[in-house]
């Protein structure tokens, strides 16, 4: 905790210049750590810009002599990444809002409506977090095939919704509880229905938690590998992770191509991450207060 201001008098305890200089080692430390984290990504970028001959011929650390975007266009078209990305976006666009709606409505009821057994219901939902997805695979497989939902997005989204519910309710219920209870009473007295209390008052106030969930859920859906590789066998319907893996199988050491593929597939999540990261810590702390 750097305390440079006396909280009682408001007078800085140390002259400003001094404290800035004192921060130098700290900044060096931060920059070093960040570079360490970004190191592999940096080489991904470098490698993706090299032609195959250059990659095999020279050291990994060499700068590309000739910048080329051929890897990107190849990954995008031949690697069918454009297809996988569209599929991923489509799944996220459907699953994430639908999931948040279902989870928040349940969390709203548990946290705000004073229903009986609210805690018991919450515990039942939370227990879902301890069930490894893998245990459900065989029965889900049988079920989806019987209902002709195997190899369909509707089936997959239904399964995604199910596995998202415990965590979504955990986060949202935690945040909803931090909103003052008097608000509900005032709203009900003013003749507000439960539905409009939910959509017009509680949900808008829970923006940080919703934003947090939006990021996590989008990431989770975008990155999901196990379920989609079991329930979707049609290659044209796959998303980025499974697509990239099969891409590897065909191009064992074409690291230029792979790097380009990885970089392209990072971009969408990066955008979501940058837009919503402001709300992130706030939303998490709401969930923490439980």
């Amino acid at each position, binding site marked *: *905790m*750097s*305390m440079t201001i006396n909280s009682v008098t408001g007078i800085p305890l140390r002259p400003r210049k001094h404290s800035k200089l004192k921060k130098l080692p*700290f900044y060096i430390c*931060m920059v070093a*750590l*960040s570079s360490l*984290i*970004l*190191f592999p990504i940096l080489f*991904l970028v470098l490698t993706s810009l090299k032609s195959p001959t250059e990659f*095999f011929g020279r*050291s*990994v*650390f060499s700068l590309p002599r000739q910048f080329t975007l051929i890897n990107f266009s190849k990954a995008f078209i031949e690697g069918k990444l454009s297809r996988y990305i569209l599929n991923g976006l489509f799944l996220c666009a459907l699953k994430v809002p639908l999931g948040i709606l*279902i*989870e928040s409505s349940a969390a709203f*009821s548990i946290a705000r409506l*004073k*229903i*009986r057994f609210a805690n018991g*219901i919450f515990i039942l*939902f*939370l*227990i879902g977090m*301890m*069930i*490894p*997805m*893998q*245990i*459900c*695979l*065989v*029965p*889900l497989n049988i*079920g989806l095939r019987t209902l002709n939902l195997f190899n369909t997005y509707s089936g997959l989204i239904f399964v995604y*919704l*199910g*596995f998202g*519910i*415990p965590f979504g309710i*955990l986060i949202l219920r935690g945040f909803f509880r931090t909103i003052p209870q008097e608000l509900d009473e005032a709203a009900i007295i003013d003749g507000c229905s*439960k539905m409009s209390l*939910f959509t017009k008052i509680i949900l808008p106030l829970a923006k940080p938690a919703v934003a947090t969930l939006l990021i996590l859920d989008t990431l989770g859906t*975008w*990155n999901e590998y*196990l379920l989609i590789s079991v329930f979707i066998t049609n290659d044209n319907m796959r998303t980025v*992770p499974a697509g990239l*893996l099969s891409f*590897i199988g065909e191009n064992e050491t074409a690291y230029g191509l*792979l790097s380009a593929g990885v970089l392209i597939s*990072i971009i969408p*999540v990066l955008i979501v*991450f940058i837009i919503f*990261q402001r709300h992130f*810590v706030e939303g*998490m*702390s709401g969930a*923490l207060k439980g």
Partner: protein
Amino acid sequence: MHSKKNLSGYIFIIPAALIYFTVIVLPAVYSFYLSFFKWNGIGPNRKFVGLNNYYHILFEDVIFERAALNNTIWILLVLTITVGFALSMALLLNRQFRGRTLFRGILYFPYVLSGVMVAIIWTWVYHPQLGLISGFLQLFNLQEYYSSPLAGVKTAFFAIYAAALWQGFGAPMILFLAGLKTIPVELYEAATIDGANRSQTFINITIPMLRETFVIVFATQIISAMKLYDIVYAMTEGGPANRTHTMATWMVRQTFIFANVGKGTSIAVVMVLVLMVVIIPYVMFMAKDTGK
């Protein structure tokens, strides 16, 4: 009168409850039932074998024992190294300084990558000829002494962990940051006025005030360590010599590759039983009415 009014509150839960029941509860119960049979997953021939599947995996299957050990090692690594690193980073980021959001974003960034992508990146980092490490050693002409740690039976699992550490410390770091934000500044001011130094305030204020965060971090980390799948599968598929299997990868292999549905589901049931030990206290903790 009162209860009638409250009944309508349950309507809001119905969609979530229905989906949750069909996707998680029902299949989990059915799997539990299947774990008492010998079945290949397709044909009509299901043979009831009682507890045989459990007996087999617990006492005869050396790969399962290895996998269980691996999960245990992973939990220990995560609880010490990952959590320690995440907490230190959170403490650094909790200061007031310019560029905080940027640094926070960078440190958290690998977490947005999927396990599969991390596996692709790190398999390349470790690659015996074309990778980052071998390229670095090449600069000093030491490349000939290098072999990929993913190929060694003793090193492979730790090599996977290194990749997972790189990817995963961001999540507990954000949780710790959120926890640190809830500690009132006055506590530190009072302690400083009383002449406490940094390590004293850390031990006597920060750690106790982060108690709830620690519970959440430990529980979520143990849960994901028990379910560990993606990154292991994508980096080694359980190899070399079946040394890097986790319970989850071994379960999937038994079920979907070897078509031993009974054995696969019994592994999953064992996973759930072990997880219960962690989760039930955690769930109780999360559900209790604290403060307010």
